[in-house]
C-alpha cells in the first residue's frame, strides 16, 4: 500500500520476519508530547543554579515550554547539571541519573560542568560531568544566562525530534499541515470510491 503518508514519511515500514510492520504517526505524537513536556529534576549545584532558577521564574517562564522541575528523579526526563561538580558529589549525580527513567537527557550548564572551568586545576573538582554520565547538550558561559538555557532546551527539543530510531528514519521529517491532511483525506476518499 502506497499512500500520501509514505511520501510524507508519516508512514514508516519496517521489514520483520513474515511480513512488514507499519508504524504511523503515533511516533510524531509521542515525540511531540515528549519534547513539549521536558521535566527537569529539581537539582542545582552552584551559581549556575541561580540562573536556572531565574529561567524557571516568571520573566523567562520555562513553564510555557512545558519545562518545570520535578521533585524526584523517577519523574524527571532531564538532568540539568547547573554548576561545579565536585568529586564528592559526582557519585551522587551518577545515582540520580541512574534513578531517572529512560529516555533521559542531560544538559551540562556552564564552564564548570563542561570541563571543570576555573577549577580545572583543583584537587576536588571533576573535570567535566561527561567523565561521569553522558551529556546531550553543552552550554558555554560562566554562568550562562537564562536565554542560553532556553536555547539549550530548544536544541534538546530538536534532538528529541531526531532521537527515536535515528538512522532508520529520516532525521527530521516534515510535520503534517492542513494541506497535507487535506491531501490524505482526498486520497482516502478516492480509495473508498474506487
Amino acid at each position, binding site marked *: 500500500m502506497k499512500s500520501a503518508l509514505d511520501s510524507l514519511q508519516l508512514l514508516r515500514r519496517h521489514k520483520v520476519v513474515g511480513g512488514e510492520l507499519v508504524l504511523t504517526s503515533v511516533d510524531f505524537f509521542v515525540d511531540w508530547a515528549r519534547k513539549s513536556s521536558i521535566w527537569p529534576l529539581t537539582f542545582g549545584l552552584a551559581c549556575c543554579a541561580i540562573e536556572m532558577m531565574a529561567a524557571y521564574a516568571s520573566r523567562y517562564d520555562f513553564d510555557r515550554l512545558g519545562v518545570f522541575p520535578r521533585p524526584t528523579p523517577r519523574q524527571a526526563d532531564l538532568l540539568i547539571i547547573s554548576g561545579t561538580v565536585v*568529586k*564528592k558529589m*559526582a557519585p551522587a549525580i551518577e545515582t540520580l541519573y541512574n534513578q531517572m527513567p529512560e529516555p533521559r537527557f542531560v544538559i551540562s550548564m556552564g564552564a564548570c560542568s563542561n570541563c571543570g572551568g576555573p577549577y580545572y586545576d583543583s*584537587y*576536588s573538582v*571533576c*573535570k*567535566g560531568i*561527561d*567523565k*561521569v554520565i553522558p551529556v546531550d547538550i553543552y552550554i558555554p558561559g560562566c554562568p550562562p544566562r537564562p536565554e542560553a538555557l532556553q536555547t539549550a532546551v530548544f536544541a534538546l527539543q530538536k534532538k528529541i525530534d531526531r532521537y527515536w530510531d535515528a538512522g532508520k528514519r529520516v532525521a527530521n521529517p516534515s510535520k503534517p499541515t492542513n494541506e497535507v491532511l487535506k491531501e490524505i483525506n482526498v486520497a482516502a476518499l478516492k480509495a473508498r470510491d474506487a
Partner: protein
Amino acid sequence: MYTIDVIEKLIQRFPEVSKIPVPEKFVRDPEPQANVPPQKLLEVCRFLKSDAAFSFDFPTHMTAVDHLKDGLFELVYALYSTQHRVGLILKSHVSRTSPEIDSVSSVWKGMDWQEREVFDLFGIRFNGHPNLKRIMLWEGYPGHPLRKDYVHVTDKYDSGLEIGTPGLDEQGLPVKGDGHGA
C-alpha cells in the same frame, strides 16, 4: 581591658608564651599575637577560657600554615572575648615529620570541625579529638592537598578513565608527557 594588656597578662601567668611583634603599619587595628609551645597549648587555652580576666569564650577560627622550608606547621588560633571585646591570636609550631598537637575541642566545642578541616587538608593529628575524621574530602583520599609538597593523583573524575587504563600508570599517576592523564 585594653588590647595591649592581654599578652602581658598572659606572659605573667605563662612565662613560656612569647609575644609576636605585629607590624602595625600594615595592619589596621591589629590583634595581639602570641607564640605558644605546643605542649602548653591546651593548658593556655583552658586558662584563657575559664579565667574571668580573659574569658575568651568565642573561638573565631583556626587554621594552619605549611612552612615547608623550615619543616614546620604553624597552627593559628583566632580567639575573641565577647565579655571584654578583645581578640587574640595564638600560634603554635609543630614538626612536619610528626605533626600532632593537643585538641582544644574540649575547651571550645566550635573548634571540633575546624580541627577536622585542618586534619583533612594538612594531615595534622589532634590528640584527644572526639571524632578525628576527614570533614570535606572523602575517606581514602590520597594525601592532604594543602600541604606544599602535595602531589595530585589523577583519578577517574579527572581523566574519565579507571585506574589501570592507558594514560595512567600502576599507581594511578598520569603517564609522563601527558598533562591531563587522558
